[in-house]
């Protein structure tokens, strides 16, 4: 097991290395000269040159990359052009906000999705099954910004119960969490139902049933145990996607999270901020993937003992 964890974590290094190169090169490919942007619109040519020297922008690309990574590994992601504050500080604050949102949304998505999926699978083609699967389909088809606007129109404008945007009280969390969580719940519910139903219809479950085991024991002990694996994968990936998918929800509800920060930074061409937050996002996302893989190994002895790949 320990060896498996080690291998999985070591595999992360080349991927993250690649990711950092991709981000670095992408940012360099964005049109416009960062030195001129830093110096301001009416700066003298000498001043621009000086900035270019200070920030190492006159060096060849690979040198710039090494310089950037050396600083990044020491926790220095550069300064935001706009706020003149260290990018890392801002990213951390924003990320905490996104994490709060993603946590509650994941919780909602997981509980709702699992309950709906398991009940649908154990009572297939029942009224509940049709209702919950229709709901799940709507959940995955409804654009999150539309759902957000509808909630806002109803709860903030019409009823006046909830604040339309911003951050502060628990009431501010309700609509963003619903918006983000319901989509995830739809995906998890569909996946859980399909997986579990397939298992319930398999031979060994029929065997368990025909040797006289009680129905609930067959469904919840024998079948559910084997549905855990694919479901964990989906739940884990969903939680990861919620971190990034929050971009739109954060914009709808003016939630000061990392997703919205990146969009603003791209619009304002704040390269240090874009680069830093993307790197941070990639790191978290890769980390979530590893956790999912490890959970997978915990529940699947074939992977754990190296039989699988």
């Amino acid at each position, binding site marked *: 097991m320990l060896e498996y964890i080690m291998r999985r974590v070591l595999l992360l290094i080349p991927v993250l290395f690649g*990711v950092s190169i991709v981000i670095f090169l992408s940012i360099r490919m964005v*049109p416009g000269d960062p030195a001129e942007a830093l110096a301001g619109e009416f700066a003298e040519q000498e001043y621009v040159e000086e900035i270019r020297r200070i920030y190492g922008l006159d060096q060849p690309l690979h040198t710039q990359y090494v310089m950037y990574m050396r600083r990044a590994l020491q926790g220095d992601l550069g300064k935001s052009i706009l706020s003149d504050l260290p990018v890392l500080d801002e990213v951390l604050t924003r990320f905490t906000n996104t994490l709060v949102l993603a946590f509650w949304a994941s919780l909602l998505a997981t509980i709702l999705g699992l309950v709906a999926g398991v009940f649908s699978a154990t009572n297939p083609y029942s009224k509940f099954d049709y209702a919950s699967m229709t709901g799940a389909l709507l959940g995955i088809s409804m654009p999150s910004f539309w759902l957000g606007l509808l909630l806002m129109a109803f709860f903030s404008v019409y009823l006046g119960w909830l604040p339309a945007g911003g951050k502060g009280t628990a009431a501010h969390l309700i609509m963003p969490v619903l918006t983000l969580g319901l989509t995830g719940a739809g995906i998890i519910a569909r996946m859980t139902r399909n997986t579990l139903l397939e298992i319930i219809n398999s031979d060994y479950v029929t065997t368990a049933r025909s040797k006289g085991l009680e129905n609930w024991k067959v469904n919840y002990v024998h079948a559910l145990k084997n549905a855990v694996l694919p479901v964990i994968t989906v739940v884990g990936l969903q939680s990861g*996607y919620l971190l990034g998918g929050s971009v739109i929800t954060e914009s709808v509800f003016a939630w000061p999270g990392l*997703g919205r920060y990146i969009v603003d930074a791209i619009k304002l061409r704040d390269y240090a901020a874009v680069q830093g937050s993307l790197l941070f*996002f990639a790191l978290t996302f890769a980390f979530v993937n590893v956790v999912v893989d490890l959970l997978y190994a915990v529940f699947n002895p074939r992977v754990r003992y190296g039989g699988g790949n």
Partner: protein
Amino acid sequence: MSPAMEAAASLPQDEIEPIHSPWTDMWARLRKHRVALAGLFFIAFFALTAVSAPYIAPYSPVETDFNKTLKPPSLAHPFGTDNFGRDVFSRVLYGARTSLLIGVFSVLIGAAGGIFLGLVGGYFGGNLDNLIMRVVDIMLTFPRILLAILLIAIIGAGMTNIMLAVGIFSIPTFARLVRSSVLVLKETEFVEAAQAVGNRSGRILYRHILPGTIGPIVVQATFLIATSIRVASGLSFLGIGVPPPTPEWGAMLADARSYIGLAPHLIMIPGFTLMVVVLAFNLLGDGLRDALDPKQRK
């Protein structure tokens, strides 16, 4: 008459299928899938709308009229007017054009790239395969919308660029899907036979392996069109998608947000049509998946 022939003769006529290709099989099963047919119907409806928008739209989708801003639905303007006095009905019609074009073309871009990488990587294996799969891993390290945003920052907004930005991130999905089918197919006897008689790799891939991967590709492509339409309109909603005044449902919703209390109809209609289109592709995808699933064959 032998017993077998008697049995065949007693079968109802419509159960005897003379032509038996995977496609006719699939269509036969899809035809029984009522929900998938509903999806197909809505897709056809919106495609027709998109094509005939210039003929059925009562007004120009971009013409402004500041004497008639934020009007509720009426006979003259069935869906009302927006904050520039533009006819919402006409804009919704033209919006179908924008969304369907982006959805279909971005997935074609992704499929072309992904199928190629998956075929080559899966068939030749080795270092090339390793390299391709690592690149795919890196692409999957980001949520799709974030990289689309980054890509747009580099190449700029606009229709074609949105198709590219959204489409490129279907590549990993297709590449993985195709690769896993290729790994199975290349061990089969008919591929070995094709190799043994001295076919070139390109011909084997194109004639013998690619057809076997088509089923899952079609299913995935249908779902991805739904996702791509949603992501693309999300980008427009964020103000970095299709530039104004092009009619686009996501952009219309972004404009409507400021008038949420004054003119709620501006939020209802574009969002609803967007949802129906995405839903239609998801329904069709479900149906195709069931129709192609060998386990459901009776």
